[in-house]
Each structure stands twice: as structure tokens, then as C-alpha cells.
């Protein structure tokens, strides 16, 4: 099938130049492997890119803050010496309240019983996060293999939890399966505080605060933030695209070749092994192994093809839940927005509009039935306050993650995009009076847009729901949860694997380590 002229043959082709693909490529290249990264778009970054949505106005396309990427990984890949700069670090979080004063979500901002409870809550959650953080850096073990490395990994996990001590372990096991609504009700009185803390548990997921398993998603986020260390809640200068530019430089310096404008049409298979890829241009490139950072459905069903897989496995891939519920709103503003009662320092941080758990749950109710929220919850940043270069002088950009905006909107996004955009601006207007008059241009990226633009099936930011049944040892599906796939030599290195999405990069790094294991592929 492959002609000898299709050489050079790479040790590994990485499909997709998003952050996970680039981390995977950089790690492989640093391990001495010859690597080719193939990115469909004209610049690297994927969903972690910076886009110009109005002339002179730039914004991070999906996630707009970096809070999950481990500091260790940033150091290991020398991203700061490859151009990564911070326009803000350790950013503050402020909960907005329409018609009321905003609440600084930190220990000094809270008073009375909530203040003490918050201190205890943070301490305890930090201990849990610390216990769980090591999981993110590991390839999940398999169950029932009798393999000692799997047994050690499971023992290690048990030990991490046991090490917490009797009281904490009991508490972790108690809350682990709870919903975040009940957990926060147990601890706090302030509705605004509960809304803000609950939002973190459901941001980017298909859950409301009362959905089962939302403490797990919160713990997951906290564990990643813990591993992130100093970079927790940071804003890279130039947007998240600049992070990927630094990743690309790091990978290139280590020897990886990166080709943009090179969409992969399919993975070539011979004798039950991937032997390379075919680009949409028809060009064929040979490789000993292929690592795909595309989402699992795209990788298995589109790029590889069900005919190379068993029916039961295809069934599981098909059942992997990938429908996104988060949209992204970008506003080009001719002046800085003024949020009622929010001072300049807080405006440069993260602003949450989810004034109570009931507000969140009601916003979610709509999504369950294929409608967008009539009162959506928002995570807002004004990146131009910290990084004026993203807009023309004096002008500003507002970037907001909007929930809930279901992928499969009953009425169809074609007709509803404008109405929902207006609704979001109205919602913002309620906490930032006068904002509407300063809007030069508005852009709404629905999950359908994210699917089309970035080739992510369902437009889910995490490439697939983060839920107990799609987590850790079973992410994305049994049979592909260790970055290996049923096809020897084909690996997954994207957010669809453990430890999942968010701009974390660990899926890419763990995959690279799996690929380089002795006796693996290359």
C-alpha cells in the first residue's frame, strides 16, 4: 500500500497539533524518537489557540485561563525559555450578583461562619487534591490482568488514600459519590459562595450541581489545580495560543517536525498495524506508530474506521458521551466593561456569574431538554486588562464561557445563535450596566461550531464527558484506557484519555511515556 517513496519513515506521527499533541510530540522527541506532528489548521493550538474574531481583537478560542497544566511539565519542556510569558498569575475569583455586591471568593473576602467553613473546606479539599494529584501523571492501571505494574499502581492509589488518615479517608469516601449541591449545602450559607464553588464542579460538563458525581469532577479539577502549583489560574501573554506556540518551539527544538495545513484523512493499516497516515491531499506518510490527539470517536470511527475494530469495542466508542454543553462568547468592546461593585484588581481576575446553586440547576434544567438556559451561568475574563496587546489601543475583549448551550439544541443553532448571543449580553448587562452600548462585535462559538472548527466530535471541551463511567481506568473506553488501542502501534494522546481535558497536557505526556515503554511500539 505504501510506496518506498513515501519515506522518510517517522518513529511516530502525532495527529493534531493541540496542546496534548504537542506535549506528546515534544516528550517523544526529547526521548530521541523522530516525530511528525500533523495539524489540520494553519497554526498549531487546536482548541487551545488564540483567534482574531474582529479586526485587531484577539481572544483564546476555548479555554481562556490556564490552571491545570502542571508546573513540572512547563519546566520540563522549558516553555518559559521558548517564549511563554504570563500576563497574570494566581488570579482572583469574584462572584457576581445582579443587584447586589460581588463576593471575593477567598479567605479574607468571606465573613462570619462561611469564612471559617471556607478555610476548613479549602484545607480539606487541598488534602484530597494532594492525594489524588499523582493519579494525573500516571497511565491508569488495568484491572484483573495479574500484571505487577497494574497491581502496584492500584496499591499506590490505595496507599495515597489510606495515607490521608482515618478521618479524611472516611470523608473522601463519603463525599466521593455525592453531588456538589449537597456537599456545599452542608458547608456554607451564602448562596453566592455556593453558586461560585458549585460552578467549578460543573464547568465544561454535562451536569447540574445536583447531578451525581459532581464532587468527583470538582475533586478532579482541584487535583489538577494542585498539580498546577504556581500557575493555577493564569493567563498566558498572547492568549492560550501563545502557550501552544511555546510548546511547538519546544517540540521543534527537540527535533519534532510540525506541519500545519495538513489534515489527516485516514490512518493507514497493514497487517493489523498502523503504517502511517494519508492526508486529505492524498499524500501518504509512513511511520512505525501513530498517536492521535483527536477525540476517540474521530480517531476510531473516522480516521481508522470501524472495519479495523471489533463490534463490541466500536459499540463502546459509540456510547462514549461527547455532546458538549459549553459555548464561548467573545465581545469586542470599545471600552473596558464596568462590573457593578467590582474594583480594578478584581476585574482583571476571573468573574463568575452563578449567583446560587438553584440558578445553576435551573440553567441546567433547560439543557436536559435540548434548550439553552434562559439565565445562563458565565465564567468571565477581560483578558485585555492584563494583556492590552490583544485589542487595539484603548479597546477591550470580554471572553466568557457560557453554560448551558447544548450541542443538540432542539431548535437548531442556525436559528437560535443570535437570540442566545443577545440573551448572554443581556445577562452580562445585568452585572455590568452599559456593557451593551460598548459592544463592537459579538461572536458565539456553540458546541457545533467547536465541533466543526476543531474536529471534536460533539464539540465537548474535554473530548468526552468527565463522569465516573468515563474516568481514569475506563477513559475513554475499556480497551483503550492505557493510551494503547486494540491496534498495536496506534495510541491515543488527547483529552479523551485519562486524565482528560482542560489545558493540562498530561494526556499527551502520559501517552508519550506509554509509547516509549520498552517493548511498546518504537
Amino acid at each position, binding site marked *: 500500500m505504501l510506496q518506498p517513496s513515501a519515506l522518510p519513515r517517522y518513529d511516530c506521527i502525532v495527529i493534531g497539533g493541540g496542546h496534548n499533541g504537542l506535549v506528546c510530540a515534544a516528550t517523544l522527541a526529547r526521548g530521541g524518537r523522530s516525530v511528525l506532528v500533523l495539524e489540520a489548521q494553519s497554526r498549531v493550538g487546536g482548541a487551545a489557540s488564540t483567534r482574531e474574531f474582529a479586526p485587531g481583537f484577539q481572544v483564546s478560542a476555548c479555554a481562556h485561563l490556564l490552571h491545570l497544566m502542571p508546573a513540572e511539565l512547563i519546566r520540563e519542556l522549558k516553555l518559559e525559555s521558548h517564549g511563554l510569558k504570563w500576563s497574570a498569575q494566581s488570579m482572583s475569583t469574584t462572584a457576581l450578583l445582579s443587584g447586589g455586591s460581588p463576593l471575593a471568593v477567598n479567605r479574607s473576602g468571606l465573613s462570619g461562619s462561611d469564612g471559617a467553613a471556607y478555610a476548613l473546606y479549602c484545607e480539606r479539599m487541598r488534602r484530597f487534591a494532594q492525594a489524588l494529584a499523582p493519579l494525573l501523571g500516571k497511565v491508569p492501571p488495568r484491572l484483573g490482568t495479574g500484571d505487577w505494574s497494574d497491581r502496584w499502581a492500584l496499591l499506590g492509589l490505595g496507599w495515597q488514600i489510606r495515607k490521608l488518615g482515618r478521618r479524611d479517608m472516611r470523608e473522601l469516601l463519603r463525599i466521593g459519590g455525592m453531588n456538589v449541591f449537597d456537599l456545599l449545602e452542608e458547608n456554607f450559607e451564602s448562596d453566592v459562595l455556593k453558586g461560585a464553588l458549585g460552578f467549578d464542579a460543573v464547568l465544561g460538563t454535562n451536569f447540574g450541581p445536583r447531578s451525581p458525581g459532581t464532587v468527583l469532577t470538582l475533586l478532579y479539577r482541584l487535583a489538577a489545580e494542585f498539580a498546577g502549583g504556581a500557575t493555577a489560574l493564569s493567563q498566558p501573554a498572547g492568549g492560550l495560543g501563545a502557550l501552544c506556540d511555546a510548546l511547538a518551539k519546544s517540540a521543534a527544538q527537540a527535533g519534532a517536525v510540525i506541519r500545519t495545513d495538513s489534515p489527516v484523512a485516514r490512518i493507514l493499516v497493514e497487517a*493489523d498495524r498502523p503504517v502511517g497516515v494519508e492526508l486529505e491531499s492524498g499524500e501518504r506518510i509512513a511511520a512505525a506508530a501513530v498517536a492521535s490527539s483527536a477525540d476517540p470517536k474521530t480517531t476510531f470511527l473516522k480516521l481508522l474506521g*470501524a472495519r479495523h475494530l471489533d463490534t463490541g*469495542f466500536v459499540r463502546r466508542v459509540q456510547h462514549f458521551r461527547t455532546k458538549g454543553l459549553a459555548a464561548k462568547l467573545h465581545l469586542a468592546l470599545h471600552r473596558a466593561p464596568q462590573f457593578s461593585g467590582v474594583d480594578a484588581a478584581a476585574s482583571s481576575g476571573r468573574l463568575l456569574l452563578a449567583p446560587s446553586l438553584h440558578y445553576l440547576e435551573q440553567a441546567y434544567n433547560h439543557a436536559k431538554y435540548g434548550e439553552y438556559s434562559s439565565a445562563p451561568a458565565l465564567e468571565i475574563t477581560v483578558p485585555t486588562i492584563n494583556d492590552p496587546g490583544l485589542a487595539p489601543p484603548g479597546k477591550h475583549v470580554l471572553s466568557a464561557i457560557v453554560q448551558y448551550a447544548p450541542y443538540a439544541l432542539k431548535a437548531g443553532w442556525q436559528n437560535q445563535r443570535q437570540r442566545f448571543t443577545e440573551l448572554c449580553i443581556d445577562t452580562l448587562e445585568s452585572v455590568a450596566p452599559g456593557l451593551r452600548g460598548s459592544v463592537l462585535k459579538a461572536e458565539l462559538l456553540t458546541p457545533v461550531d467547536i465541533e466543526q472548527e476543531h474536529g471534536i466530535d460533539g464539540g465537548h471541551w474535554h473530548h468526552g464527558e468527565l463522569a465516573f463511567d468515563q474516568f481514569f481506568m475506563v477513559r475513554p473506553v475499556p480497551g483503550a484506557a492505557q493510551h494503547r488501542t486494540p491496534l498495536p502501534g496506534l495510541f491515543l494522546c488527547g483529552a479523551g484519555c485519562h486524565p482528560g481535558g482542560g489545558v493540562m497536557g498530561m494526556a499527551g505526556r502520559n501517552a508519550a511515556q506509554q509509547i516509549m515503554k520498552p517493548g511498546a511500539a518504537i
Partner: protein
Amino acid sequence: MTTPKTLAPHFEQPLLETPFHDRARALSQVDSFVAWAGYTTVDVFTTVEQEYFAIRNATTLYDLTPMVKYRIFGPDAVPYLNRLVTRDLAKLRPDRVAYCVWCNDAGHLIDDGTVFRLGETEFRLCTAERQIDWLLDSAIGFDLKIAEVTEDIAALAVQGPTSCSVLTAAGMVGVDRLKPFEIGYFNVDGRALTASRTGFTGDLGYELWMAPQDAEAVWDALMAAGRSRGIRAIGSQALNIARLEAGFLSPNVDFVSAEQTIRTGRDRSPLELGLAWLVDFDKGHFNGRRALLAERQRGPRRQLVGLDIAGNKPAHHALLYAEANGKREIGSVSSAAWSPTCKLNIALAMVEGPYYQLGSTVWADIYLNRELVWERRMSRAVVVERPFFAPSRRRATPPTEF
């Protein structure tokens, strides 16, 4: 789909009647019917012995309409079926039939059945169990359509040494030129039907496929043409002895579909069932290939084998032992019968290694109920080749005239 003949509400009459039911009812002397895949069918018409000997000495009619039939058609039909089953169906020419098995991801058998290639991209799959969910899930990523056509096609097996002569006499001129596993198109009494030289008896025989409204006329024409050649309707019990002599597996008797087993370790692979000859590892990927390759490498732990057992008491459900002392259990019998034609006490049994080797001796613990008193016999059994009975007439083309 055509409307089922019986229109009574399903809760009043949960079993359907086949288009041959009235004819079968009229011939039934012992009123012995059994449920088969949602239909009522005849277990015994007169006596098992009489019906069995008609299979081996004359011609028999057996209603196999309840056999589940799927129409599989479309541009990707060949790649789809080749990914589904373990054989290479790209090699199956139009108007030919292939016996196939298909497996789950673990290489364990879901079912066996026959695939009819009716055109370049037109196939029919006949199986014992309904499995539309597996077939549809297997179609993800393929361009084709699948439809269940069980009720649309009446099916009649015409088996026995005089069957070719009976069919010819009934007007199916040229049926003698059909080779084993070949499909031909004929008329009986002005009604078009499809015939395949296939069957479950291991003897000379054919299966006829027709529209349900033609079923009774074809039945009558065959009965009339076969009167002088000993034609007889048979039920499932007689067929079961013949299929055992032929060494064929019976689903839910000799294996349980991997989609239906509840207990771990009850699934069976084609290698364990002695069907390795159906597995083509070189044709490209198919369901279970990776698991089966691994199993082939380590060797199957157990195998389905034929047994020749001392004495004449069928070893129904007998446990098998390595020694006559009955201490080490090494397997069990799944099908057993006294073979009237071979004059042997035969059985199919799942036996652990190394005892499944041809020629090994094992011991069958046979329980006999003699007028309510149970007796036990530890009988010597030898692992022998299958089929137990394979007359040359089953392959001869043209068959001998009668």
C-alpha cells in the same frame, strides 16, 4: 413484512404458526409440538425411529421457517460480512452458500449460521437466534442495510437419498446439477422458489425457500411426487439424531451464545468448538481476530470432540473423567444418541486438554433410569473424528437416481 397468518392477539396465542402449520397439524399423530424461535413446530409426527429412518432411506420434509433470516444488502455488504464472520466471504461466489460462525471481541462464538450470496451485494444470513442488535452495531461505519425477513420466506428442508428424485419428479428439472452449497432457481406447480443444496442431516438434501403463500401448494406437490419414494414429514427429534451423526453443532445445546452467557468461562471460541477450519486469519480484520490469534498461540484449553462410547446407552449430560475411578473430571457431554446407522453410541463432548486428542480414552459417567431406579455406568469412550456418518451421496453430483 407480510402479516402473520395468525391474527389473534399475541397474549392469547404467543406462538406464531408457520405457513406449513395446517399441513403439519393434519399429519401429526402424537400432537407433539415445540416452540422454536417464536413459532410452534413439530417435535415428532409419528415416532422418532420412523422419521429418522426416512431421513437415511427415503425423503423427508422438515419445516425450517422459524430459522431467523436477515437480508443484508448494499455496497459494503462484502466488507461488512467479512468483518462479521470468521470465514473469507470475498471468496464466496454468487449463488453459493457458506457455513459461518461469528464471534464477539473476545473471540467467543455468538452464533453459527449460513450465508447465502444471492448477488454481488445481496446476501441472506440464516441463524438460530435473533441478533439484530449485534448485526446493526456491527454495521457502524459500513454502507449497507439489514432487514429481518423471517416471516417473508417460508423454508422447507427436503432431505434424504431419494430427495433429488422427488424434487425432479415435482418439476424441479435440473436440480440434480446443483453442487453442494450451490443455489438454483426453480418452479414447482408454477410457483417460483429458490433451492440450495444445504441441510442439517449430513445426507443428500436440499432446502427450498419460497413465498409464504406458495408454501402449501409446494408441500402438496412434493408429497404427491414423493409418495412412491417414501416421503415423510419429520419433526425436530429425528433431525437431531441425524445432525449428531453428521457432527453438526446445535446452538444452546453444544454451545451457548457469548451474548447470552451469564457465568464467566461459559463462552466458547471456534477453536474450542473444533471449528478452526472456519477461521481465516489471513483475510484481514474480523471480530475477535486478535483474541483468536492469541488463543491459537497458547492453544485451546478444551475442545469439542466426538466420542465413541462403549455400550448402547446414550450418554446424555454425562460427566467425563480421566480414569474409570471417576476422580479427575475433564469435561462433559453436550449431545448424545445411539446412532442407528453407524451402530455406535455417539456423543459430542467438551473435553479438556490433553484428553481431547484423537484416540484418547476418557470415561463417561452415564446415569440410567430403569423403571424409576437409577443406575450408573462408567463407560469407556474414545475420542474419534467427526462426522460420525458421511455418506458419499451427500456430495455426489448428480446424485444417484431412485
